[in-house]
């Protein structure tokens, strides 16, 4: 792989704080085995030291042109012409893959790249772009989610026997650690963006605590924040606090506007989700927030993807999925056999053709700009066409069925009630 295909600028301005307190270099990177690196936990290291010193080795790898193992998801996404996290992070410092050499030389971080090159990957910068995972406090139990992201799912998994113990308490339950993090933010010049994830952010007590701290310290006036919500709750007090911020990037998680969303994003109810979606869209429009749908297409929802694309296209709201699903692998869209993929590909191709958006060489990387939303949605649809056509079928239907049957015993539902068109496929495989 060449430099333009491996390099990422993210470790010069971004860091991630996971629910268990683990610091990491990227929100898109594959997560480390957390227990293996306790020294990188906010309980044990100041975020400044972690960023400037500990992350030197990853910066050095990028400077040396190495393909970094933990970045394989971004490299896979690039392969299917979908917009990867790597490309988004490059763009934030003015670098594009199509003009890589010239845009990198012209980047505002050019001098700092040279400094790091001369100093074994060290930097004097601080992160100005954070992803902060608040914990697993959640009212939802999406089937592809995990106990570390959902307290409801954690309880259910323990009851079924999928896990032995529920996850440890998140870092956000310690007022001392919240202070440590907010103090890092306070001393960061040019702090630009903090993206919060839950659990469900809107009902997580620490979300309110941190928002209030950012407002009290005057940080809210100069910083953009992002959050992702599951469209099942409405909290006016939080919305009033969000209005205090310079800019809000609102990610609205949904898989489709079809009853199968209720099965996958259990126990949501699609009518209610649609109503709350409209409320968020309205408040977002009133406050000039950047709105996005955050989708996680799986083998159970990819055939209904157009319901989101249609709504988003008509309302000029971008649609973003971080990576192609790989975990759990048995729910990934590439589980689907060719005969089930074909009608989905055809449906997506017809939809793309109907939009008559000129095929442009200029890929939309800044997917959050409303003016580009429609073109971006078509681009996203095309990436799923490419994926379904080219990604080999993986033989994990049996695993999926074992998993679904155990969950269904707990929940009293049946996938074939939501996807009758999968009936033969699932039964042949042992459903």
């Amino acid at each position, binding site marked *: 792989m060449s430099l333009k295909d491996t390099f990422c600028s993210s470790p010069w301005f971004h860091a991630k704080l996971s629910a268990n307190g683990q610091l990491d270099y990227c929100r898109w990177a594959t997560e480390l085995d957390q227990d293996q690196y306790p020294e990188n936990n906010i309980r044990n290291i100041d975020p400044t030291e972690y960023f400037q010193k500990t992350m030197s080795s990853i910066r050095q790898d990028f400077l040396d*042109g190495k393909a970094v193992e933990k970045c394989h998801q971004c490299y896979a996404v690039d392969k299917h012409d979908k917009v990867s996290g790597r490309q988004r992070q490059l*763009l934030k410092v003015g670098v594009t893959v199509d*003009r890589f050499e010239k845009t990198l030389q*012209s980047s*505002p*971080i050019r001098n*700092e790249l040279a400094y790091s*090159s001369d100093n074994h990957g060290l930097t004097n*910068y601080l992160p*100005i772009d954070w992803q902060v995972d608040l914990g697993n406090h959640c009212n939802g139990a999406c089937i592809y989610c995990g106990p570390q992201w959902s307290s409801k799912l954690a309880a259910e998994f323990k009851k079924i026997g999928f896990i032995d113990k529920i996850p440890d308490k998140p870092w956000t339950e310690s007022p001392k650690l919240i202070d440590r993090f907010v103090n890092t933010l306070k001393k960061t010049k040019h702090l630009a963006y903090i993206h919060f994830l839950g659990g469900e952010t809107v009902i997580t007590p620490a979300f309110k605590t941190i928002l209030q701290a950012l407002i009290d310290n005057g940080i809210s006036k100069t910083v953009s924040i992002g959050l992702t919500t599951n469209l099942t709750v409405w909290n006016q007090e939080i919305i009033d606090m969000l209005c205090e911020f310079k800019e809000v990037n609102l990610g609205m998680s949904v898989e489709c506007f079809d009853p199968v969303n209720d099965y996958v994003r259990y126990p949501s109810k699609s009518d209610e989700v649609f109503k709350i979606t409209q409320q968020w869209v309205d408040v977002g429009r009133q406050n000039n927030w950047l709105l996005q749908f955050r989708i996680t297409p799986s083998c159970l929802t990819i055939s209904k993807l157009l319901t989101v694309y249609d709504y988003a296209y008509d309302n000029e709201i971008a649609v973003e999925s971080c990576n192609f699903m790989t975990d759990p692998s048995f729910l990934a869209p590439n589980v689907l056999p060719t005969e089930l993929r074909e009608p989905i590909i055809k449906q997506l191709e017809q939809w793309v053709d109907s939009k008559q958006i000129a095929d442009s060489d200029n890929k939309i990387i800044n997917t959050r700009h409303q003016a580009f939303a429609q073109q971006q949605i078509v681009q996203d649809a095309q990436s799923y066409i490419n994926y379904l056509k080219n990604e080999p079928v993986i033989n994990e239907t049996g695993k999926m069925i074992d998993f679904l049957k155990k969950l269904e015993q707990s929940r009293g539902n049946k996938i074939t009630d939501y996807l009758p068109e999968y009936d033969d496929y699932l039964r042949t495989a042992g459903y």
Partner: protein
Amino acid sequence: MTTISELLATKQSLTISVNGETYEHPLLEPVTIKIENGYQQTVIDDFEIKDWWGYMHDGDWYFNTKYPFYQWKHTITDQGWLFYQNS
């Protein structure tokens, strides 16, 4: 070119074309163009410069990026954040 330090050490330039006449310009120096008697087609590294991105004065068309061209292009094409750091 296999490392970023090699890339940064490589001398690069912009290719500027005004009404078909082409010349090179240092990559990191802001681009300044004056066209007498009004706008004519201007292209920088295959990117067409619209006449309204410059201004007219006494019948001549002026264009100035003020920043390195690719930083200017990032802004004019609405590419979102352009992070400047605090080293």
